[in-house]
């Protein structure tokens, strides 16, 4: 057996990038249609699942479809600007959605929530059913808390697929490739859609970058961080959630990991290096996953809100993030937090989080007193 040394990894990565991306544009374009934006065509996005949501430029809503290994960009035509800074709420949202979809609340899964930045309508990515009957549904709630389905037929859309490169030539005993990337988070930054994913085979952290309007190529970065709990060993843990955020004047990503470090990567590095090591800024404490992150400004100061699986809602200031030094020392015990300090906000059970307007964030929250699931607005005043 010989060992050949060739720059194979580099070619492999390029091959992955090319094989992983092809763009669907046209379904049908009626001659009388309004001009289509961003390389879209009119049709019915063939969503197999509706997972992570993120708003892009104009009226574009990105919908992550892990089951179909794709991200859809849909023009939701929801331009009515709402400048009010009012709260909104839907009590018992799972029961209400179940009624609308004609099923039971336990068959309703709210996969993500995103607020349209102009209209303040709240978009919800839903799975109706958990088994063979599972269907993706996109819903919209207005400020009055009225729910409606967002029709996904005859809408302008485009799609980028994120399929694994084919398993060259070999058929498995299952007859196909069982690899799948689960999309954990999406964000649109400066003409690029950033897609964080988790593989069901390799334990690895991969960030894909798709130019938007979608084109042929998707760039792939592999990421690693030093784990906060040790200064020597690295981790390739997958990213659970991330947030574009400027740190010390540099456009960056704040990335949240299971168990539960927060690390940063600069966008400039993502564009120039295929493999990069992040800077670990905080340890939120073990036994927890950061579920969602948003940035907001209060009295001219930028802050970051973090919703957690097993801890309270947290708020960090940009100043503290700017000042943070890379963590290289272990924490003292299992649940100890360290690094960038955070304000622990007395709100728990939040599974989804987004900015509603200047004064409020909107959350999906499990009430621990009566077990109900509610869409609520929380004031940014004390955060």
């Amino acid at each position, binding site marked *: *057996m*010989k*060992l*050949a*040394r*060739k720059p*194979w*990894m580099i070619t*492999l990565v390029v091959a992955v990038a090319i094989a992983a991306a092809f763009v669907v544009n046209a379904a049908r374009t009626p001659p009388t249609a309004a001009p289509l934006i961003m390389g879209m065509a009119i049709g019915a996005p063939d969503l197999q699942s509706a997972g992570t949501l993120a708003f892009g430029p104009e009226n574009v809503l990105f919908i992550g479809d*892990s089951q179909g290994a794709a991200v859809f960009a849909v023009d939701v035509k929801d331009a009515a600007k709402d400048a009010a800074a009012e709260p909104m709420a839907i009590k018992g949202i799972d*029961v*209400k959605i179940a*009624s*609308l979809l*004609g*099923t*039971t609340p336990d068959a309703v899964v709210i996969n993500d929530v995103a607020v349209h930045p102009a209209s303040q309508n709240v978009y919800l990515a839903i799975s*109706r059913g*958990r*088994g*063979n*009957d*599972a*269907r993706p549904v996109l819903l919209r709630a207005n400020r009055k808390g009225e*729910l409606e*389905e967002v029709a996904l037929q005859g809408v302008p859309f485009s799609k980028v697929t994120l399929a*694994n490169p084919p*398993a*060259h*030539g*070999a*058929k*498995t*005993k299952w007859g196909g*490739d*069982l*690899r*799948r990337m689960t*999309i*954990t988070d999406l964000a649109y930054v400066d003409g690029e859609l950033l897609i964080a994913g988790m593989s*069901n*085979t*390799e*334990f*690895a952290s991969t960030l894909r970058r798709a130019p938007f309007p979608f084109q042929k190529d998707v760039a792939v970065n592999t990421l690693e961080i030093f784990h906060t*709990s*040790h200064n*020597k*060993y*690295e981790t390739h843990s*997958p990213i*659970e959630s991330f947030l574009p955020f400027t740190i010390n004047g540099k456009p960056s990503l704040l990335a949240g990991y299971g*168990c539960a470090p927060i690390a940063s990567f600069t966008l400039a590095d993502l564009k120039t290096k295929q493999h990069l090591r992040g800077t670990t800024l905080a340890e939120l404490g*073990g036994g927890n*996953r950061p579920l969602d992150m948003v940035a907001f400004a209060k009295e001219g100061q930028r802050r970051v809100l973090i919703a957690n*699986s097993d801890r309270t809602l947290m708020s960090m200031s940009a100043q503290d993030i700017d000042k943070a030094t890379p963590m290289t020392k*272990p*924490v003292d*015990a*299992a649940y100890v937090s360290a690094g960038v300090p955070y304000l622990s906000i007395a709100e728990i059970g939040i599974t989804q989080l987004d900015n509603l307007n200047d004064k409020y964030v909107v959350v999906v929250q499990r009430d621990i007193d009566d077990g109900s699931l509610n869409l609520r607005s929380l004031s940014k005043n004390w955060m």
Partner: protein
Amino acid sequence: MSWNASAGTIDVRGVRHPARATLTVHSGPSDALPMLGRVEIRDDGLAFHPRFPLVPGLAYRVRVNDAENTIVVPKTATEATTHVAQVFPTANELPSNQLKFYLDFSAPMSTGDVYRHIHLLDEAGHEVPRAFLQTAHELWDWRRQRFTLILDPGRIKRGLRANVEAGAPLREGARYRLVIDADWRDGDGNPLRERFSKPFVVVAADRVMPAHRKWRVTAPSARTAEPLRVTFDESLDRALLDHSLIVRDARGEIILGDIDVASSETEWLFRPRQPWRDGPYTIDVDPRLEDRAGNNLRRLFDEDATTPRSGVEVIQVHFAVK
């Protein structure tokens, strides 16, 4: 009025002035939102085409003007047939830093809340707490038949605080059982045929990278479709073996064939679709191929980052067919 329903349509006949009638369908409380759907006006009544199929066994209250009736689409009685077909690794001796299990089911499963159904029990039958990495997004293959279960890597990596505090979830020398409850629902909502239990004993941690130089290649004979057999130096990750090895002929052309994995994932068998020809062949090995502890051909899973990397960028294994 007569009321009939299938999963796709609710049919109400004998309605006076159907064009002026109103029809709503509720699955939840009466004050909740009516179900989405389209009402079709017919000569003698109304038809409701729900946006989503009616759920068998669930009561729907159908209201036409002031009349109301409850409709249930009967549930077809089905037997619990789905079962755990295999759990990888298949061996019953596992290293204490075992990283993943793959749970293979005989049919597609339901998603959501899966960790409730999976238990790691120690010898006394006590549950090992927080043994698994519970990701917010469940790791299924696209068929929903294979679930990837990751042992909490924070507890496996040496030196990590969680490892120091709680110890690795698996202790060398101890016996465990990986148990999957029968109440985990399959894709049709039925429970599993039976509870599944995989007993295993834990041996020393695997702190050695797989070494392709120690692999043994058993070359097939020319003009046969005998399997090419690669025997590894240790058990490797079952899922990654599906796509990590590529066989090429002397010109670099990919040979098409079928893969099988045997002997506790220490053997990779490749049956070509066309008979082998005389001459040299190469197996390209993706260096990201992992052993059971997540060590791949380039680095240890919990590599000391201060050691220089091996610099191996491609791995090729050569053999000749005669």
